């Protein structure tokens, strides 16, 4: 178990190091997220709809789209120069390999989210400080779930002919429960509701995480092993 975690961390560290050396993907994903926020701003009639009413949906659609872009790249980099074959030849349990890729994806998506959140506050003028701990918790819970499913789908999608299209088509239905939960919880937290009121949603998000992280880890060998 300790060994598996160590291997997973090593794989995640490899991905993060590779990303930090080029930074192109991280930069593009962040710019993409910022652009989505800007586009959303023009999709709303400011006289008809207050920013605060739309804010939770805008935030989560932006996060979801940014995560999609990020996940598309997770296994594309392993495809180049058959890097995945090298990883699979190494004596690494597949579960540890999955955990490593998941951690790297979480670091990537988390970074994009961390940069997008202040931009969102800035563009939409949403007072957020009072709800910040709650929103960070909701973000973490929701992100873990759909990034786990996205990681395994990304490994499949790169093997198909239209990888960039296949991933969203497969992943979006799986994003629905975490997105509904996150939007609902965020809206309540922004409206100064107490944390106890969103406990139901938080439980649902946590349950989703437990079920899908476990399931994806168990199913991962079927995706990478011939």
């Amino acid at each position: 178990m300790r060994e598996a975690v160590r291997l997973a961390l090593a794989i995640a560290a490899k991905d993060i190091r590779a990303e930090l050396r080029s930074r192109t993907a991280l930069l593009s994903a962040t710019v993409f997220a910022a652009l989505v926020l800007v586009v959303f701003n023009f999709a709303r009639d400011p006289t008809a709809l207050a920013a605060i009413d739309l804010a939770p949906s805008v935030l989560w659609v932006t996060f979801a789209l940014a995560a999609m872009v990020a996940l598309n790249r997770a296994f594309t980099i392993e495809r180049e120069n058959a890097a995945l074959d090298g990883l699979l030849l190494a004596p690494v349990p597949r579960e540890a390999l999955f955990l490593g890729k998941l951690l790297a994806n979480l670091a990537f998506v988390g970074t994009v989210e961390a940069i997008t959140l202040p931009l969102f506050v800035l563009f939409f003028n949403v007072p957020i400080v009072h709800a910040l701990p709650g929103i960070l918790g909701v973000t973490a819970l929701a992100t873990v779930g759909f990034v786990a499913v996205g990681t395994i789908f990304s490994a499949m999608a790169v093997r198909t002919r239209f990888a960039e299209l296949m991933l969203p088509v497969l992943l979006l239905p799986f994003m629905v429960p975490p997105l509904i939960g996150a939007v609902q919880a965020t809206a309540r937290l922004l409206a100064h509701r107490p944390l106890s009121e969103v406990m139901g949603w938080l439980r649902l998000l946590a349950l989703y995480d437990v079920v899908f992280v476990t399931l994806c880890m168990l199913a991962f060998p079927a995706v990478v092993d011939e």
Partner: protein
Amino acid sequence: MTQPAAAAPIVRRGLLLSSVALLGLAGVYVLAIGYTPVEARQGLAQKIFYLHVPAAWSALLSFSLVGISSALYLWLHDPRLDRFAASSAEVGVAFSAVMLTTGPIWAKPIWGTWWTWDARLTLTLFLFFLFIGYLALRAALADPAERARFSAVVGILGMLLVPFIHLSVYLFRTLHPQPVVLKPSAPSLPPAMLQTLLTSVAVFTLLYIGLVTVRYGIALADEAREAADAA
């Protein structure tokens, strides 16, 4: 190695079953129009019930069987399970399309709207999308073994997604009470209606079996051709 010759009898059997089911379907139309009484409040619009509910039944049956056969495939690695899952998913998408078109046709006069984000509607819509994705993935993969493994994984994850979608759309609605949607509250059906409905469910189940059998035979023939091309 599968022989093309093995596929033909299966397809024929499937076509026979489907033809019987289609005859039965004609019978359901006769029953629905001639035998069942006109519902007092909904009028003739209610007749669509005898197609919509059985179509929904067949769609859910096919998707459940995709989930189960996917799980069994990852365990047993029997290509028959994969072929069955693929056939069932395709037929299920067809039945969902019937369900998702007959539903709004009924809902417009009765609810006053084509679509509402009711928990059950949302769930079935996402199931439909999920299995379109499943079929798209299958179509985009060339290697049969890889296709079988990947689609089995999607099938299993999809089966587990269903309770989550249900729970989240249900919570979404109960926490956010919407304007009261006019819904028939589980009516105790008059015998004529119940008999027609049950007949129709039986007919649609038979149609499901027939269509899946045809599709299974076609999958068998496809594999034989793929293997011949590869050789």
